[in-house]
């Protein structure tokens, strides 16, 4: 009898355990749509760090004033694992109406049919005024699936005091850059001339573009990776040289630990490569610690002085979910937010730290600001290959990151590159 009991409990225990094996999807919470009495709620997903509070509040106030009975609900999302979350959200009956989607990921969602076709509303969004560099990421096969919102690129952030002590001025070429780092090392052997973790793959992509290579290229009707090439080998070798000045981990990216708030404020970092919001985050964190940051900024140097280094043009588009139940309202909100006026007030809110969809809406950045350095290299801005499968490459485990770590630890660039290319091709062509 008792053995039977134990057996039964064993069965129960096993069933409970096995239940946990079934993959439990964390359903994205969809905004509760107030539909009663003509009151509508427009849900907008923005990414962490994208929309300054005062700007989005202003847009919503204006929108709600001209649309009585409509409330705009803004939900801030984190970048980590965002793709799964967006996929789940787009498959639901009540998805967020407007979503911010990274410019490297928009094509993938457009191809999956999750985003509303906005081709018919081009005029409403001021399509004609958008800059040529920013358009491609929002389009697929001649159709428009999103309104470009902003783009930004990385620049080098440096500690003015450390540079002054070592007698280093902002470099214009790669050779000068390395020379300066050597001087910094000599002046203060204890601190890092540059903080550069091994998996900062957007930085690497810039070096690769400088060499004339690309992360992936189309070969007939198939895509193939571009890391097993001679161009990639020279790019990663320069990255390796740069990284040798840093004691940052070779198997981490810049977000783990967060370089802007976890590393730089602790001191001992003379320079680092980051985005505008990262520089801002570091300044705040240093202020909180009771010190004052004195940062200078310069564009990532190119191979020659006449052209700054290529940079990844990171940015976001605003799209409308195909299953949105308030498509017309969503379009109007989108038109308002990405209008020239909306972009100008956005530019002001971020102190000119972004490249807007319409070049004439560019807010002049302050002298000596991050934005000033950033805008200088905007002309060499590039984006990742435009294809449906690209988003798959970026999801962790990202083969480009794995490739970088392997080479930095001494593996042959060609061999590691070819291995990564296999994964890239697999993900792009699936």
């Amino acid at each position, binding site marked *: *009898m*008792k*053995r*039977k*009991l*134990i*057996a039964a*409990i*064993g069965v*129960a*225990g*096993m*069933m*409970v*355990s*096995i*239940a*946990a*094996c*079934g*993959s*439990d*999807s*964390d359903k994205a919470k969809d905004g509760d749509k107030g539909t009663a009495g003509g009151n509508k709620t427009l849900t907008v997903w923005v990414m962490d760090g994208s929309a300054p509070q005062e700007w989005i509040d202003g847009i919503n106030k204006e929108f709600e004033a001209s649309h009585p009975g409509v409330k705009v609900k803004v939900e801030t999302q*984190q970048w*980590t*694992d965002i*793709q*799964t*979350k967006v*996929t*789940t959200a*787009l*498959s639901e009956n009540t998805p967020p109406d407007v979503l911010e989607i990274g410019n490297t990921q928009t094509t*993938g*969602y457009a*191809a*999956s*049919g*999750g985003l509303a076709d906005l081709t018919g509303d081009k005029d409403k969004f001021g399509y004609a005024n958008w800059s040529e560099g920013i358009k491609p990421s929002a389009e697929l096969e001649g159709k428009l699936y999103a309104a470009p919102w902003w783009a930004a690129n990385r620049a080098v952030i440096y500690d003015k005091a450390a540079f002054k002590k070592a007698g280093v001025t902002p470099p214009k070429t790669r050779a000068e850059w390395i020379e300066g780092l050597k001087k910094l090392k000599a002046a203060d052997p204890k601190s890092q001339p540059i903080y550069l973790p091994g998996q900062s793959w957007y930085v690497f992509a810039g070096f690769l573009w400088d060499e004339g290579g690309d992360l992936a290229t189309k070969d007939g009707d198939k895509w193939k990776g571009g890391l097993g090439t001679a161009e990639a080998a020279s790019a990663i070798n320069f990255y390796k040289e740069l990284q040798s000045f840093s*004691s940052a*981990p*070779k*198997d*981490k990216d810049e977000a783990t*630990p967060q370089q802007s708030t976890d*590393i730089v404020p602790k001191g001992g970092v003379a320079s680092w490569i980051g985005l505008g919001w990262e520089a801002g985050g570091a300044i705040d964190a240093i202020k909180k610690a009771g010190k004052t940051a004195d940062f200078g900024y310069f564009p990532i140097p190119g191979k020659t002085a006449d052209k700054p280094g290529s940079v990844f043009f990171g940015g976001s588009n605003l799209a409308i979910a195909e299953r949105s139940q308030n498509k017309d309202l969503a379009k109007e909100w989108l038109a308002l937010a990405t209008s020239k006026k909306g972009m100008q007030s956005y530019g002001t809110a971020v102190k000119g730290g972004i490249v807007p969809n319409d070049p004439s809406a560019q807010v002049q950045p302050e002298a000596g600001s991050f934005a000033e350095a950033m805008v200088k290299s905007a002309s060499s801005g590039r984006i990742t290959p435009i294809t449906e499968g690209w988003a*798959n490459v970026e*999801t*962790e*485990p990202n083969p480009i990151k*794995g490739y970088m*770590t*392997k080479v930095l630890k001494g593996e042959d660039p060609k061999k590691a590159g070819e291995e990564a290319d296999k994964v890239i091709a697999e*993900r792009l062509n*699936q």
Partner: protein
Amino acid sequence: MTVDSQGTASAAPQDAPGRAAGKSQTPPPPSGAKESLRPPRGRRSLPSGLLPYLLVTPALLSMAVLLLYPLIRNVILSFQGVNKREMIRRETPWVGFENYTKLLGDPDFWSVVVRSLVVTAVNVALVMLIGTLVGMLLNRLGKKMRLVLSLALMFAWAMPIVASVTVFRWLFDEQFGVANWVMRSIGFSGYEQHNWFETGFSTLVIVTILLVWGSIPFVALNMYAALTTVGTELYEAAKMDGASGWRTFWSVVFPNLKPFFMITTFLEIIWIFKAFTQVYAMNQGGPDRSSETLPVFAYIEGMGQQHYGLAAAISILTIVMLLVAMSFYFRLILKQEDEQ
């Protein structure tokens, strides 16, 4: 990080085996000798008619809704080619055994399987060994120290998993970790910026420390509870015969507590084999996918790479493997039933 939500989702089932086995102790584990002395009083008062069925209905219903239904859906999903695009379009194309054949022909899958089996074997052996020793220590300690040790065990058991993984991550952090500092302080060189998560192996070693640490309380406390059912006269008799401690354990304690050892071992096998949060949150299955165990593999293929059908197939294969392992256990139990 989504790890948090994942953590809470899997935290509940994780301690379930603990609770289930805790229950198994409420009627003290049978010790052959005593059983036959006692009159079988249970049978007389058993309720008859519909009542017993009514009593088990809620449990069966909740199992059907919460376990059986999702399981069936999961089986169906494993025969469908559902990826990101199909998910958004709500298409469920039937692909037959394609997911399975793809997996079984994939060397990566097999290396994950082997890795999972090795991790499980090592962990269960360590947990059972250390847990049993701690349980016996509990039995021998005086009142005060026993309370202190039990409390320490309870705290380790009660620690939320994601929180404990976070603590471990910081302990072994490359730049600010205590582990590196300790190694330096006691005079080892090369721990200036030692990366404890450099390889899949080293990552899994740290995961093992965490898993063993997290599971010892369950085994130790159960062991202690079970030991209290072993009559002191047996120890005395053994002592009289001049048996060593080692001999006493194998001749008195072990035979008496055999059912306890069996159920605990099998519950631990399940618990370790399906451990997800600890492995995933530690290093996301990295570096370069080399610390992925089966549940993490399923998650990364499913939620990360958005191959939902393939991930379902992985989880089904995981269940099959567990069932095979468990079948040995049930055969043993049934055999013992027959013998009696």
